[in-house]
């Protein structure tokens, strides 16, 4: 379970949110510049809140007066907008980048499984600039999941794709979540996508939560 309760001053407004995520898909919806990426970055440890508290399964990521846990030790997967694949490495190297050397055989099997599920077997020896947008998205997903993260953050994961690929990838994500069973946080500004993917949807505006909807029951929580 992920618990986030943070405050951070941004140039135009104050981000002040309080949310918990079980092993479910949480979708953050809001116009651009409403503080969505700031929240993801705070959870990932790439940026720190002014105060508050972030914990994942009892593990303290951030707490007011303590030194924040470095990104490297948080064991999260982060799918960046536009994917941020390493241009100088093949798809295979990209995916294997975060895998610890220690249990190589096990890791190899895991990657093989991932690659097969995502159907990117034929791309392994290619470089990122040689593959299409949808393929990049899958490679980036494989890369984020290859480290067996206990939390997956996805920043506008599907915005760069055409509508058909988009549909495929949405299903892909749901399937992955069903097998992975860790919290997913997806940031989007597309309402339809939010309704399709989310177990829970949180609406953000200027750094504040305007409403939270339990999408499976359709009930408004607050």
């Amino acid at each position: 379970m992920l618990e986030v309760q943070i405050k951070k001053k941004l140039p135009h407004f104050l981000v002040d949110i309080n949310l918990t995520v079980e092993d479910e898909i949480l979708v953050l919806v809001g116009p651009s510049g409403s503080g969505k990426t700031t929240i993801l970055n705070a959870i990932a440890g790439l940026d720190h809140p002014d105060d508050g508290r972030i914990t994942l399964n009892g593990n303290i990521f951030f707490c007011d007066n303590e030194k924040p846990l470095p990104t490297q030790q948080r064991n999260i997967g982060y799918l960046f907008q536009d994917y941020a694949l390493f241009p100088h490495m093949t798809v295979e190297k990209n995916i294997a980048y975060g895998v610890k050397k220690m249990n190589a055989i096990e890791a190899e099997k895991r990657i093989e499984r991932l690659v097969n599920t995502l159907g990117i077997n034929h791309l392994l020896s290619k470089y990122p600039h040689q593959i299409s947008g949808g393929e990049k998205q899958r490679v980036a997903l494989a890369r984020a999941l290859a480290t067996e993260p206990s939390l997956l953050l996805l920043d506008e994961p599907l915005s760069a794709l055409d509508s058909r690929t988009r549909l495929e990838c949405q299903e892909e994500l749901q399937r992955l979540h069903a097998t992975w069973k860790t919290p997913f946080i997806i940031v989007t500004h597309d309402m339809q996508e939010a309704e399709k993917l989310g177990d829970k949807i949180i609406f953000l505006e200027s750094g504040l939560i305007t409403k939270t909807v339990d999408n499976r029951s359709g009930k408004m929580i607050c």
Partner: protein
Amino acid sequence: MTDYSPLLLSLKVAGISTFFVFIFGVFFAHLFSRKKFFGKSIIESLFMLPLVLPPTVVGFGLLILFGKNGFIGSWLLNWFDFQVVFTWIGAVIASIVVSFPLMYQSAAAAFESLDARMENAARTMGASNWRVFWTISFRLAWPGLLAGLVLSFARGLGEFGATLMLAGYIPGKTDTIPMAIYFAVESGQMEKATFWVVIIVALGFSTIMWLNWWSRRNIERYKNDNA
């Protein structure tokens, strides 16, 4: 029979100086690239200073620091019995100081233009800062770093003013190609001067030529990268 020692000495001095300049330049450029702190612009201006100062001023400053009675020079002499002035090491130091700005500037520009998400992505995958630097930042900044490296080497090869002050002109010990040229011209030995001019022009031209060719090829290769 021509004495080729100036060529060997020049290559040795420029090579060793470039090695240190590259390490220091990359280190400081990376250290400063994503940080904002008080006095950063002051330090950066200090780094760039040798680029705009007359070489003799740089040379005089180095003499004051590294001379037998200088701040650093006397310390080196007392503790390590090591003298910089009037040795080829003095030429290396002069060359380091004048070519450092070129390396720093290239490296700083290269690191600053990096996509921060690349490094962040590596971090979320558990890579240590050292690994992030080595496998991501350094590799992606490499074209810019290489440009700095080559320019520093070329600058070191051509360095004259500060070197003459710090290393002196001792035939057979500290006579680099630019010194050989200068004194040959001044004393009217045009044949000797021309010989060395041809060599240094060929060296400088081919290094820069190669850099241009290499970076063009490199740009082609990564062209479709920023999708």
